[in-house]
């Protein structure tokens, strides 16, 4: 559906987009993920024909955005970072203008616009002046604008930025719904968002593609260590002693007490060793009930930091960030000797 090939955009000496390539399949929701200034908006602006690339091509449904701009642009609905709204118009006037502007060929204009307004829930403000709308409504009118004419491709630049949590959830569900019969590309610096909505993720940093994969695959490729979290009722020392007797454990981190009379651990095993059954038996023998045991998947946040900063140190559960004390096997051993 969409092919982005070797895209380069230079602003003077600064390279905002540096050789980005990816393809978007029909009916897919693709997320562009990256920190601010990574080149997401520039990439989207090039894809929609607002900017021209210094190098490289963008093909939308077989039409090059530079060579056949009219055909390519007909396929696209674009919601830029700042919704392009005319403050002096009412919502309905504005959408009618967009309808005429795009030369849409639907049989019944008002029916088409009513459907869109229903989908993004702006029907109740359709006769209000856009200038007086709240940020959330403006964003939704912006989304409605992109949907006018039912384009095959929707390109949404940070569609949920600046919205309150309820609105974010709403907009996300709208996008998810749209993804069923549109090809959607959205950008975000919010990881949960991409994780929740997207089929595939392109991570962009410093104008380069850092990784392309499904959110779950990305999590798997980067965390090849086996890690799980344990919550055990009982004394920390006893639990550590018991865990130590299990073969195949590489490292144990104590996360301290989160619940009364319990202790949490992160257990990291040697590669390709499953020790969970063993741990269960040992704990049972020592009369230390396991209250919970769950594998730790990397969140996209971890992947993100991992991929963009190549920092191998931080890779695990988010909780671990605020650990108060970390005890490693060796330390504990020393203590024991005293």
């Amino acid at each position, binding site marked *: 559906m969409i092919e982005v090939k070797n895209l380069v955009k230079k602003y003077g000496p600064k390279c905002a987009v540096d050789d980005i390539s990816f393809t978007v399949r029909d009916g897919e929701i693709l997320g562009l993920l990256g920190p601010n200034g990574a080149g997401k908006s520039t990439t989207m602006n090039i894809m929609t*024909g*607002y900017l021209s690339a210094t190098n490289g091509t963008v093909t939308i449904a077989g039409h090059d955005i530079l060579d056949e*701009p009219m055909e390519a642009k007909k396929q696209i609905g*674009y919601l*830029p970072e700042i919704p392009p709204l*005319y403050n002096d*118009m009412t919502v309905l006037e504005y959408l009618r203008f967009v309808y005429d502007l*795009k030369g849409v060929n639907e049989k019944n204009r008002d029916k088409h616009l009513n459907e869109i307004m229903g989908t993004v829930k702006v029907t109740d403000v359709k006769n209000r002046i856009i200038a007086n709308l709240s940020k959330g409504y403006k964003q939704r009118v912006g989304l409605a*604008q992109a949907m006018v004419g039912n384009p095959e491709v929707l390109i949404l630049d940070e569609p949920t930025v600046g919205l309150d949590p309820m609105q974010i959830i709403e907009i996300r569900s709208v996008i998810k719904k749209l993804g069923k019969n549109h090809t959607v590309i959205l950008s975000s610096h919010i990881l949960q968002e991409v994780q929740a909505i997207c089929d595939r993720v392109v991570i962009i940093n410093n104008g380069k593609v850092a990784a392309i994969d499904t959110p779950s695959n990305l999590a798997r490729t980067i965390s090849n260590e086996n890690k799980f979290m344990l919550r055990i009722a009982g004394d920390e020392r006893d639990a550590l002693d018991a865990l130590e007797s299990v073969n195949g454990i590489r490292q144990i981190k104590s996360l301290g007490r989160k619940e009364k009379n319990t202790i949490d651990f992160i257990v990291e095993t040697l590669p390709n060793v499953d020790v969970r059954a063993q741990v269960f038996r040992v704990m049972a023998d020592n009369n230390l009930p396991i209250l919970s045991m769950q594998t730790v998947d990397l969140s996209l946040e971890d992947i993100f930091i991992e991929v963009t900063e190549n920092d191998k140190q931080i890779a695990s559960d988010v909780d671990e960030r605020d650990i108060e004390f970390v005890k490693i096997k060796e330390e504990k051993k020393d203590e024991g000797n005293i």
Partner: protein
Amino acid sequence: MKAIFKRELNAYFKTPLGYIFIGLFICFSSLMFFTYNLSAKTSIMTDYFTHISYIFIVAVPLLTMKMFSEERRLKTDQLLLTSPVKVTDIVLGKFLSGMSVLAVSIVFSLVYLVVLSIYGNPPVIQSLVGYLGILLYGAMLIAIGMFVSTLTQHQIVAAVSTMAIVAVLSLVGSANFDFTGAFNGNLLFLGKFLNGAVDFLDTNARFYDFAKGTLNLVPIVYFISLTVLFVVLTVRVIERRRWR
């Protein structure tokens, strides 16, 4: 083009700008009519026309200052430029909407000719040529103002620059510069060149033909070609900006 034309025209009358333009034009032209026709007790409108053009110094920036500066500042140009519309159509839509407001004002001012016809015997054809002159002159100034508005994101900057340009164009002739006096001897060529430049910029001199009621090819070509030039330049600036 139609969609943009419609939107722009609507915007002129949703904001006070359209009314202010028409109001200014009517007030000023009434004043001129009173001074140069009623008080002067003549049905010849030449003096009326030669003076009416000065209102453009203040009025034209009102029409043009927002045209593209505001689109860029509010990022609404992202909608226009990513829609399947040619840049030329966008520019023409805006230009024609400005022209429409001017045309409406001119239609209002036709009432003076009607009044003159009732109570006197004005040369109707010659007067209509004068009105045509206002339209062509205004078209050129609107094209220039539109071009200026593509160069900045601030409508005030666009307005002040346009005002300055229109002022120079309409007043430079009345100043009667003669550079051959200042640059004589070896620099005479420079003086002649500057005189030529002033002559070229002196749009009022071109307009004077219309005001007298003579339909000359030269001023018509002058106004139309400069209008076309600035419309084309506007399109070029917007297209070039993508590559920046």
